[in-house]
């Protein structure tokens, strides 16, 4: 055992000396490799953590949301709709909700305006004329509690509001662009007559009953579209799916880069390298020794790249809030929530990344020297 360890150490000594002969080239290779691992690991960590965060936070979403569809489009709930539902067994509460979008031409941002449910904000009741705003919106317009802000409604009139409060920064992931106002203000601002609602939120006591209730709802109101909480959660389970857009491009680019590396390694040796292997064999190295030595070269480089890339990715995603992804995620939006993600890692994903980082490269390093390693060393004498 001790001999085996000493032997591997000696082989590693040689392989490192060998790599050191072209310090710059090999350091460059290591850097690029680490960068690829960094990008892949960053994407992996970010998407997994975001999905987990979504699941944790949205599990308190309303059990059923009922939308009304007119000509394939989402339309307002008319008066009497709520009553048409009647009493459905299992439904504890049903309430009409009011929310919509507003485009602020001043900063070219979209806001979500909402009327919080009765009793939702008992501590700071939203009185007529006052609003509670999300943190990103506050940043965009430079607002603090006590400030006044005016919006021009779609009917052309100007409405002024006082900022009563700003929602906490830690809740930006769900509330960054929110503007909460009273029902009277909302109806006046958007010119929505009493009795009309955006949608209906239903709370159901028993989670097993939700599907049945949804079916009953669709039966009773054929122009309705029930959205279940489980569907909401599933939407976010597939966010940043690897099959989508930019993630797919990133993945393809990374795989291509790996393939180029492996191809470069595997597509044969230079005359110099062949000669050196011949020399090693001539001075007493066995085929197996040469292969083991090459194995260490591939393994050490890929292992280092994996460890460094992963550590950098972890720091990037969980300590620097995925700063490099911000331009991509922001897209054309003006508002972008500042949020920290809870660090959750999928061990299986990490293991897969490790496998795909280390294994192919190590094999690619060994394959080309196989041929050279098994040739008879007498060629060296004659050469």
């Amino acid at each position, binding site marked *: 055992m001790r001999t085996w360890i000493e032997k591997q150490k000696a*082989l590693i000594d040689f392989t490192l000396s060998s790599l050191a002969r072209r310090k710059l080239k090999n350091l460059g290779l290591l850097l690029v490799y680490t960068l690829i691992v960094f990008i892949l690991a960053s994407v992996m960590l970010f998407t997994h953590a975001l999905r987990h965060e979504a699941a944790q936070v949205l599990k308190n979403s309303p059990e059923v949301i009922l939308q009304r569809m007119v000509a394939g489009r989402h339309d307002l709930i008319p008066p009497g709709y709520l009553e048409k539902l009647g009493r459905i067994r299992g439904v504890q509460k049903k309430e009409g909700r009011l929310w919509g979008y507003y485009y602020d031409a001043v900063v070219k941002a979209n806001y979500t305006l909402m009327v919080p449910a009765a009793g939702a904000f008992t501590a700071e009741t939203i009185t007529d004329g006052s609003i509670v705003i999300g943190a990103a919106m506050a940043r965009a317009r430079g607002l603090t509690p006590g400030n006044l802000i005016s919006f021009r409604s779609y009917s052309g009139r100007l409405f002024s509001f006082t900022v009563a409060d700003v929602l906490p920064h830690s809740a930006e992931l769900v509330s960054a662009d929110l503007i909460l106002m009273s029902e009277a203000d909302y109806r006046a601002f958007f010119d929505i007559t009493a009795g009309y609602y955006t949608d209906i939120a239903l709370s159901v006591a028993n989670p097993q009953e939700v599907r049945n209730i949804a079916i009953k709802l669709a039966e009773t109101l054929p122009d309705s579209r029930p959205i279940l909480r489980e569907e909401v959660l599933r939407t976010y389970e597939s966010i940043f799916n690897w099959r989508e857009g930019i993630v797919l491009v990133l993945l393809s680019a990374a795989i291509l880069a790996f393939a180029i590396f492996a191809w470069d390694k595997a597509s044969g040796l230079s005359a110099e390298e062949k000669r050196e292997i011949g020399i090693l064999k*001539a*001075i007493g190295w066995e085929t197996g020794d040469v292969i083991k030595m090459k194995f260490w070269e591939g393994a050490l480089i890929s292992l280092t790249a994996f460890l460094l890339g992963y550590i950098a990715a972890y720091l990037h995603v969980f300590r620097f809030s995925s700063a490099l992804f911000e331009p991509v995620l922001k897209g054309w939006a003006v508002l972008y929530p500042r949020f920290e993600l809870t660090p959750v890692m999928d061990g299986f994903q990490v293991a897969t990344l490790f496998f795909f980082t280390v294994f192919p490269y190590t094999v690619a390093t060994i394959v080309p020297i196989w041929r050279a390693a098994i040739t*008879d060393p007498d060629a060296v004498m*004659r*050469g």
Partner: protein
Amino acid sequence: MIKLTDIRKAYNQGRDNEFWALNGIDLKIEPQRVTALCGPSGSGKTTLLTIVGCLARPTSGRVHLRERDISGLPERFLTEIRRSTFGFVFQQFNLIKGLTARDNVMLPAYPLGGDWRALHDRAESLLDTLKLGHRRHARVEWLSGGEQQRVAIARAMINDPEVVIADEPTANLDTALSREFMAILENLKEQGKTILLTSHDPLVVESAVVDTVVNLRDGRLVGAD
């Protein structure tokens, strides 16, 4: 010590350019003597050297090392024997570029997994003996021809082999360095090593250090000394 019986070696056998380098060699290498193989280029000297030193296998014929038939051994065993019994000094030196002199000397013993410290010390003492101690950290490509050859000799000696094989050792050296080499050779002989070399340099062949001269021509022996 080493006995060759009817050794034949062919290259590209069965193909159009089939070439028989050795056509039946019977030879005995005496222990603790210096044997020189002479002959024009193409006579098969180097081929014979590779077969004696277990670098290649004969196409037919037998090689006996101390009464033991080693011609049919699998590669593992052959390498083992080669590593422990033979030390090679190649005509082109064949040092690994980019590595220091000391690293090059230690190289043959790396796969053995022995005590690194001891190996390191032995390498340094070998280089000292050959008056290269001050150059041990130099990269071999920065060394002069004579220095490189001495590194090659030190490397050949690292596993303390019984037989030292040198292929055209003075081909790339001037007279002064050639004489230095012969002095080193004499030293090795005094240490009890068996030495086999090829050369067509009269300085070597006619030297007093050489005990036996074997002449080769067209893959066959021509008379004997």
